[in-house]
């Protein structure tokens, strides 16, 4: 019932919404980032973080710190919070929360499959996986030789199974195949998530369709740019775009035929929301496109908190926290490698 969420939302969702809003206010602020950027060593970073909500997670780390430890502990906090919310959630919120992790699951599958292809140690790969995207038999992915086996052996038990219907081939796995698989999976996942949100309806549908459309469009642009100069045909490229979003369908037609980045830019500038992003870039430059997209995303995610009684806040919070962890990772890396001049290159301020 659109517009009447206020009546019933709090019965099941009120507690968790309060929790997530509380979590959100624990995000680092611009002042925190300014302080972090001035740090000289990783210990300073730890020192500063100990005054924030990350404090309890870092306090027992012995002193020669590594960037990975910081990121690991920060991720652990996010995972703890996620698990807390998931155990408290009821339908349909619990399904919604689970949907959020499928993206990580896809990434993990791809990571392990690529890793085994290059004959890495499975344990080592497992450590690199995002903890939110873990599932039971993830380690057995290494057994599979081709897509069909991958599906039949492992993924049939996971929530990703339905997304696989489009990419079952008997071809042996190679880098290109895997990349195509990742994007096909992502496409199916985003479309499924989009449908799910529409089914929930109300403010959730409204806000999530905005956020997911942005995600789909960003992926479309990235696919187009990355596939320039590869053997991917136009039709294949067209197939990887998700069937919703601001660019669907006409923008996709244009993107599909782009041959260089300036054509992509030409196609995108017809859409007012993206015009602003591309106008920041000078011609021929794609390095800071990622950052521009991230900034736009963060802006939209923050806006999700302006409205009440919808599930978008959970998605937004998880994304914001991930962005924050990316920021922390970048800052710590810059500090660790004495590249402090580059610290501001990739940090996206959240507030």
């Amino acid at each position: 019932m659109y517009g009447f969420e206020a009546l019933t939302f709090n019965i099941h969702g009120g507690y968790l919404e309060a929790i997530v809003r509380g979590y959100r206010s624990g995000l680092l602020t611009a002042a925190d980032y300014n302080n972090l950027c001035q740090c000289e060593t990783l210990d300073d970073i730890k020192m500063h973080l100990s005054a924030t909500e990350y404090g309890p997670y870092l306090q027992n780390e012995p002193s020669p710190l590594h960037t990975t430890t910081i990121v690991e502990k920060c991720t652990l906090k996010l995972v703890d919070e996620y698990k807390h919310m998931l155990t408290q959630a009821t339908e349909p919120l619990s399904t919604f929360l689970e949907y959020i992790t499928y993206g990580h699951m896809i990434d993990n599958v791809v990571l392990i499959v690529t890793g085994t292809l290059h004959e890495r140690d499975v344990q080592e790969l497992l450590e690199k996986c995002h903890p939110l995207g873990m599932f039971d038999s993830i380690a057995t992915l290494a057994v599979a030789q081709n897509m069909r086996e991958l599906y039949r052996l492992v993924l049939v038990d996971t929530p990703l199974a339905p997304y696989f219907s489009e990419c079952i081939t008997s071809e042996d796995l190679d880098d290109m195949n895997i990349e195509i698989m990742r994007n096909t999976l992502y496409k199916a996942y985003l479309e499924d998530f989009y449908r799910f949100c529409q089914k929930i309806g109300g403010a959730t549908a409204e806000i999530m369709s905005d956020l997911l459309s942005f995600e789909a469009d960003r992926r479309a642009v990235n696919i187009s740019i990355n596939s320039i100069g590869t053997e991917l045909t136009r039709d294949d490229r067209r197939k990887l775009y998700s069937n919703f979003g601001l660019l669907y369908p006409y923008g996709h037609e244009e993107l599909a035929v782009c041959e260089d980045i300036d054509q992509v830019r030409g196609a995108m500038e017809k859409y007012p929301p993206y015009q602003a992003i591309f106008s920041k870039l000078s011609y021929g430059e794609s390095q800071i496109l990622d950052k521009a997209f991230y900034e736009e995303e963060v802006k939209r995610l923050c806006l999700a908190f302006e409205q009440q009684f919808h599930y978008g806040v959970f998605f937004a919070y998880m994304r914001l926290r991930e962005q924050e962890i990316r920021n922390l990772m970048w800052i710590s890396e810059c500090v660790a490698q004495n590249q402090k001049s580059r610290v501001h290159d990739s940090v996206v301020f959240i507030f």
Partner: protein
Amino acid sequence: MEYIDNLPSMDLMRSEKMTLVQLIIPVESAHRAVSYLGHLGLLQFRDLNDDKSPFQRTFVNQIQLLENFPQVKRCAEMSRKLRFIKDHIHKAGLMPGLKQSPNPASQPDIELEELEVQLAEHEHGLIEMNANSEKLQQTYNELLEFNMVLQKAGDFLLSSGSHAADQETELDENIHTIDDYADTASLLEQEMQPGPSNQSGVRFISGIICKSKVLRFERMLFRTTRGNMLFNQAPADDQIIDPASNEMVSFSFFMGNILNSVEKIVFVVFFSGEQARTKILKICEAFGANCYPVPEDTTKRRQITREVLSRLSELETTLEAGLRHRDKALTSIGFHLARWMNMVRREKAVYDTLNMLNFDVTKKCLVGEGWCPIFAKTKIQEALQRATFDSNSQVGVIFHVMDSIESPPTYFRTNPFTNAYQEIVDAYGFHKNVAVGRVCCNKRNAKIFLHFAFGVIVGWLTRLVKFEVSGNVVVLMGYLFGFCLCEMYLKIYSSVGRYQEANPAVYTIVTFPFLFAVMFGDWGHGICLLLGALFLVAREKKFGSQKLGSFMEMLFGGRYVLLMMSIFSIYCGLIYNEFFSVPFHIFGSSAYKCRDATCSDARIVGLVKSGETYPFGVDPSWRGSRSELPFLNSLKMKMSILLGITQMNLGIVLSYFNARYFSNSLDIKYQFVPQIIFLNSLFGYLSLLIIMKWCTGSQADLYHVMIYMFLSPFEDLGENQLFRGQGVLQVILLLLAVIAVPWMLFPKPFILKKLHTERFQGRTYGILGTSDMYNDEEPRSARQPHHEEFNFSEVFVHQMIHSIEFVLGAVSNTASYLRLWALSLAHSELSTVFYEKVLLLAWGYDNLIIRLIGLAVFAFATAFILLMMETLSAFLHALRLHWVEFQNKFYSGDGYKFRPFSFAALNDDED
């Protein structure tokens, strides 16, 4: 007026006089001075570096001037090491707390630097020992598992009847093939008949896996081999520690068998084909299953088993020796641990405090500001002198008093008796904060708010029901819920009385137990409570030194409140003549008797008066008679109104004392006077009527009098007239009340506005700020004035709210005191029900068992419902009467608590 001024001063009435002091400490004696002040615990430092981030502060990083100073970071690192060691001691099952030396002062103090070195050594040693024993432990566990696999897998192989002793396999190979050249065509057949299939190329892998994973493991195997395999499993006999998990298993080897172990399953997979082998091995790896080679041959198997067992026993002795060694090391550390932790904690607190100080211009001295009670000035000076002397400093510490504009913190010196009452009053700050919704949205607050809101809602809902169901068990649950949570978070939010304003705790000491007793009046129950309270008081020393559970702690904290409450309930119970609802003739014989000898019509017709009035309290003969309820209701209702009016008047009078103390004549003239007139012209008059009615025995209907005083003030009172001239008096009182309302609403804001404009008349420029030099020296000093804007509309709205609140409150608060009547009625009715319907009913049967059951039910009902729940309910209602009805007349409660820098408080905060 002089008489009031000459009253002896009450310690608890006003909070301690505080003063802002400035310390200028030479750098070399700073550390010692601050730690001496910490021992003293009477000075609250102000943070002068509020605007600086943690690592810009002086003592976080080493600075050139203070090279010998350990930093906060070093303290943090040391406390991390201590936590690490403590964890290990706990895991090893040694209790450091008990082994702590009885007299820590007798041990020689060691320097912090020395401690740091020692700690580093200990940590290093521990880590090394762990690494060693971990390796050993891992081998040990592997062997243990191997042994298990050998046994179980051997059983399978035996049972499958394979005695192909002619072909032997190598030990170090995981896979044992009987026949390398399998006939692929007969795969299906082999699967059907696993027993005699040895000749046709079946190989097997044996290993061990966690029980939780075994189902998925089997399914995965089935899928990969497309069903061409046979999976045999048997549970391992003992719980085994997983050798792969590095989870400090070695640490607590003996306890580990219970703590870290998992149930495991031994499996043997039969399959055929080289490809299947690699796949199965990969799956084993992925699932964390450990594979061990098992020879087909029985004799060989026995031989290996023997070898394994002998190595196991060797390892066991080695491990035990290592363990003993480690335990010894840990015990010796545990001996000092508590003291070291204390020391590091203090050190860290000292540096945190030093970080609040500022450098002066020359960078040779540290400048600090803080609040201290005036009585403590000499003690602080002594401590500072001692510090100067002990650190051989050339220059003494300069200590001088400063003026301040900021309000000082509130500090009461309480003793164990008054402390609980002070806490009750301080808790009001939280109540108020929630009420005005000042709870901002962060994680913790959101939770608190939700919980509290829930408690309040449940309380309100059940309260609506309450008037229909006279038992108030339901009400209580709601309040109980809200209150328990409220209690839990009190420590976070208590904001205390404004500096030097009248402290309600003084009166609460008596009024709180009294109002409680009015609701809980029963001298039987009172005696039970008294025994409990006396027990707590008598064991004070014992309980005070040990850690109690949260509930017990609450009880113990309020032991003196409980004591007073029980004494007052005995008193009130005597007045009500209630003893588990059994009437007693304590003070002589009753004034009433029945109409006839059988006394059968007492309930219907009533009693006749025969003798003198019963000397003290309620006449016992009335119990169960017709006039019992009407009489008690009338008595208790009127009494609650009288008590309420008295307490509210006391509140207003206290607001007069406050205004006088802060010499605020405006508040006296335009707030105190109209308020007291308003309240007393309406409800004071009602009290007068009540007393008069009691004294004269008049039949006048007071409802009628009060209602028609408003509806038609000029009408004749008729039979309801109590004294001559009542009609005229009523008109006058009504007029006074009507005048009092605009009196308290309008003049004050207008006068304030006039004063403001007069003060700033002709001033076109603002006051010049203090010079930059001065600002650099003392940023954020309490001396700098706040520039306040005068906003007339805001002041007026505030005054309007205040007046409306008072006028409406006069009615609703008076009605609110009726809870005294309601609760006391509920209490006596409940106890009557339990006595008559349970105990007497059971006693009616001539059966021992029924009587015993009846007695048991009565005892439980009395203990849990009447003594526990009712106590809590009456407590909460008394609390509310004090917080809302009494305190809102004069208590602003917006001060902040005095939190001196003290090592003693530091120890309490731990855990």
